Every structure is written in structure tokens, then in C-alpha cells.
């Protein structure tokens, strides 16, 4: 659906995107994560021609974005909806007019039915005549989503769509996007600095840091076996024990964590302490990790056990989390 090959972009003599490669397949939810200033928005805006670039190639729905201009570029943009962190709605206009706006620009037929249908979809049918400035953040983003869908786009670009919302509202917006992705078969590109959003929604992802790719691939695999650079960005907030060896265990969907840990303790006849752990939702699955601390004397036995049982594990040391990674 969208290909980016060896993309470079400079603002003046500052390189904000360095050799970016990515591939968004049809129907998937693709995430772009990174700290603020990493170049995520710039990358997203290159995809629908809002931003130009100096090197590389961006192909959206089969056409080279840089080759378009004028009406042909505007046509492409109309087939790619976009939503924003600050919603970017016309505050004085009502919900209906905001959603109808792109359709009016393009002279689309049956505006009334289409808008009502979209408001039904995002759950705002009753608020059509209400002014946007009186809505809550979550409702505003729903209006934004309805507006972005107004022209029946094939791709939805989301720039920090949930960053201005509280956690509960974020979840409800993510559920809505998930719904839209499934039911309308819409390809979604999610740009965000929120790791939870990516884990919850994105099938594959690209991790950016200061314009450079840190990691890219299928979400599940990336989080189960993060690279060194990635671990630095995705740090757990646990204080590790000074003595012994801290080991981070990752549990994919098919391993029951409870039994494996107790079984290990029993069969090796060792003691260990639990430093921390968490269950996380990745897409539809629940994944967990557990950080344990074992005496240095038992380290090899434990690692051997983990190796034999095909677990994802990682030895953590205090200076730098994530020293080695093996399955």
C-alpha cells in the first residue's frame, strides 16, 4: 500500500530523516514510534505529499508521490484520510459541517446520508448539530475520524491521534480504529510516541530515533526479542537488584507462565526472587514478562533451563538494561 525506500529529508542542512525504509501492506495497522522530534510526523507527511523530500522514493497506492503535483496530488490526498493530535477541527462549526467539509470541497453527492452514516459509525449521531468547541477530546477525535473517512479513503494516517487524550479515552479511540481497520478493511498508519498504543494496535512497526531507524518488523517479535538499541528506548521502570543476575523472561501466547516458573524452581531446586513483572496486551493477545533475580551460582543452570524450554529471555545488568538476547 505504501512503500518508502531510502528516504532522506533535510530541513536546511539538518537531516531529519535518514535512510528510511518501510512497507505498509494493505489492510494492516502500521506503527511509527519514537520520541518527540524523531521525525515521525515528517515521515507521515511525506506519505501523502504534504511534505517534500530530497532523496529516496515514496510510493502510495502504486504511484510515486513525488511525481504528482496539482490536481493529481490532491486526488491522492483525498484517498488518504488524516487525523491529528489536536483534532484540527473548525471550532465554530458544528459536527455535521466539519464532517461534510471534505465532501463539499470535492463536490461529493449525498452528503447528508453519508455524514449521518459516518456519525453513526463513530457514535456521535446525536451530536450532529452541536458545535465542535463544546465537545470533549475523545468526541472531537471521533469527529476527526469521521471527517477523515468522509471521502472513502483507502488509507488512514494518524498523527499522535491519542496523545492529547486520557488513558480511558485513548482506549476507546483505539478500539474504534481497530473496528474501522477490520470492518472497512482500511489500512492505518499510526504515528505515536506512546508505546502502549503500538503494542495494543499495530501489526508491524518502525521505531525511529532522531531520524534513524532503530528497529522495524512485526510488533510481537520486536517486543519479544528487542535489539539492543530498541531496549534502550523501551525501558522498564524497575530497580534491579545489585547482587545476583537479573533475568527478564518473556512469555508469548502459547506458554503458560505460571507453570514454567514454578516448574523451573522445582526441577532445578533453586531459589529466586521476583523483581517485577507485567502483563501487556499486544493486539489481541496478552503477553507477559517477568524479571527474576537468581544467585550468580545458579545463573548457568537457569539459563540452560530457559534454553531447553525455548523461552525468550534476556540478562539485564544494572548499567545497561538488555545486554544479550536469545531464544
Amino acid at each position, binding site marked *: 500500500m505504501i512503500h518508502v525506500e531510502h528516504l532522506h529529508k533535510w530541513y536546511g542542512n539538518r537531516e531529519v530523516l535518514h535512510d528510511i525504509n518501510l512497507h505498509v501492506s494493505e489492510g494492516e495497522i502500521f506503527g511509527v514510534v519514537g520520541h518527540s522530534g524523531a521525525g515521525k510526523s515528517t515521515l507521515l507527511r511525506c506519505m501523502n505529499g504534504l511534505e517534500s523530500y530530497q532523496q529516496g522514493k515514496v510510493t502510495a497506492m502504486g504511484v510515486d508521490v513525488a511525481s504528482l503535483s496539482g490536481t493529481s496530488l490532491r486526488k491522492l490526498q*483525498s484517498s488518504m484520510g488524516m487525523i491529528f493530535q489536536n483534532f484540527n*477541527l*473548525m471550532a*465554530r462549526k458544528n459536527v455535521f459541517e466539519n464532517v461534510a467539509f471534505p465532501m463539499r*470541497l470535492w463536490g461529493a453527492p449525498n452528503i447528508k446520508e453519508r455524514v449521518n452514516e459516518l456519525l453513526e459509525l463513530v457514535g456521535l449521531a446525536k451530536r450532529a448539530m452541536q458545535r465542535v468547541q463544546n465537545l470533549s477530546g475523545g468526541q472531537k477525535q471521533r469527529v476527526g475520524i469521521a471527517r477523515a473517512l468522509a471521502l472513502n479513503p483507502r488509507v488512514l*494516517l494518524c498523527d499522535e491521534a491519542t496523545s492529547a487524550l486520557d488513558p480511558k479515552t485513548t482506549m476507546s479511540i483505539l478500539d474504534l480504529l481497530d473496528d474501522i481497520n477490520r470492518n472497512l478493511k482500511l489500512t492505518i498508519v499510526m504515528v505515536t510516541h506512546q508505546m502502549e498504543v503500538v503494542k495494543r494496535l499495530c501489526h508491524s512497526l518502525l521505531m525511529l530515533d532522531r531520524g534513524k531507524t532503530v528497529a522495524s518488523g512485526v510488533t510481537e517479535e520486536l517486543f519479544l526479542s528487542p535489539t539492543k538499541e530498541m531496549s534502550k528506548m523501551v525501558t522498564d521502570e524497575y530497580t534491579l537488584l545489585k547482587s545476583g543476575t537479573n533475568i527478564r523472561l518473556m512469555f508469548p501466547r502459547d506458554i503458560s507462565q505460571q507453570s514454567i516458573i514454578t516448574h523451573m524452581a522445582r526441577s532445578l531446586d533453586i531459589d529466586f526472587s521476583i523483581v517485577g513483572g507485567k502483563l501487556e496486551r499486544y493486539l489481541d493477545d496478552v503477553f507477559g514478562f517477568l524479571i527474576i533475580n537468581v544467585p550468580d551460582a545458579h545463573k548457568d543452570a537457569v539459563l540452560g533451563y530457559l534454553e531447553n524450554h525455548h523461552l525468550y529471555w534476556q540478562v539485564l545488568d544494572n548499567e545497561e538494561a538488555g545486554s544479550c538476547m536469545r531464544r
Partner: protein
Amino acid sequence: MHETIIHLGAWAEPLWTRFLEKLPEILQATWETLDMVFLSTVFSMFFGFILAIWMIVTNPLGLRPCPAVYRVLDFVVNLLRSFPFIILLIAIIPITRFIVGTSIGSAAAIVPLTVAAAPFVARLIETCFLEVDRGVIEAARSFGASNTQIIFRVLIPEALPSIVLNVAVVAITLLGYSAMAGTVGGGGLGDLAVRYGYNRFQVDIMVYAVIILCILVLLIQGVCNLLYKVLR
């Protein structure tokens, strides 16, 4: 005339008679002022608006950046704004004569008033445009709006309430300028006040002129505020 002033109880009467006597002239002057202010507001809004759109389009961060053009426009606007009105009034007499055919009368005053106010309007409206949420423009862009559509469907409608408020600023400024234009033959309330109050010491007539000017200011501000509330 002098004996009436001695009878204090009767001094109001000649004032009243003089008011009635001068009423047609006062009304005439009011009409001239309204005429000058209304037309020069309309014309300066028109030209200022075009200038403002041109500036917002060519602005380095604008819809189609063209820094060279923007710098020229910016310079011209600043230059015209720094001209004292009274000097502009005299300096452009040849232009006035060319456009209106004469350099005397309220029709002739409209030319310098417009020339003086248009760059002021341009600056005010440019500010209104700059205050429009850039995100909304970005959103319009993202679903393929053309620059023309962005100007007419986003910028102007979004900036309209604050533009309306600025119409009051412009009209009230022009009301003040029109008093000056009066002194070079433009007529109007300013001219009336100076002629009677300053030249002939008939302070009462000057007071009437000032009261009417005050009422006009309040009226203009009130109407624009009302419009703003409706539009906002």
C-alpha cells in the same frame, strides 16, 4: 446678542434658537461624515483585504511562499502606514484630482482616506489570517483542498469574526481621519467643529459635533460587537 447673556434665566433660549438655526448644517455635516467614513471604510477594506490575502499567500510560511514578493508588500505597507495622514492628504492631491476630478469636497476626501487606511487594514486582516489555527489549514490540505479553497473555505470563514471586530477599529480610525480631511475642504463634523468652535468661538456647535462623533463611535463599536457575537 450681548444683553441676552446678562439674563441668565434666558440664556438657554438663544442656544436653542441657534441649534435650530444650525440644525440643517449639523445634519449636513453628519451626513458628509457618514458618507466619507462609510465609503472609505468599504474601499479600504476592499483593497486592504486583497493586500492581506496576497501577503498571506506569499508569506514565507504561507500557502505559496514567495519571500521576495512578501518583503516588497511588507515594505510598502509599512511605508504607507508611517506617513502622517495630514501629509498624505496633501501629497496625493494630484492622484485625487485624477480619480475624482476635484481635490475638494467629501468625495475627494475619500481617496486619501482610503489610501491611508488600506495598508492599516491589510496589516489588521493579515494578523487575523495568521491567527487562524494552522492545524485546520493542514487538515484541509490533507484531504486535498486547493489553495483557493483554503483561502475561501478556511481562512476567510475562520478569520471572519475577528475581521468584523477590526472593521470597527478601521471605521473609528477613519472617523478621526475624516475630521482632518474636513479641514482641506472635505466638510463633515470635524470641519463644522473647527469652523464654529475654533474660528468663531461658538463652542456649543463644537460640542454638538463632538457629541455626534461620540455617538457614531459607540454605534460602530456596538454594531460590530453584536455581529462578532453572532458570528463567533
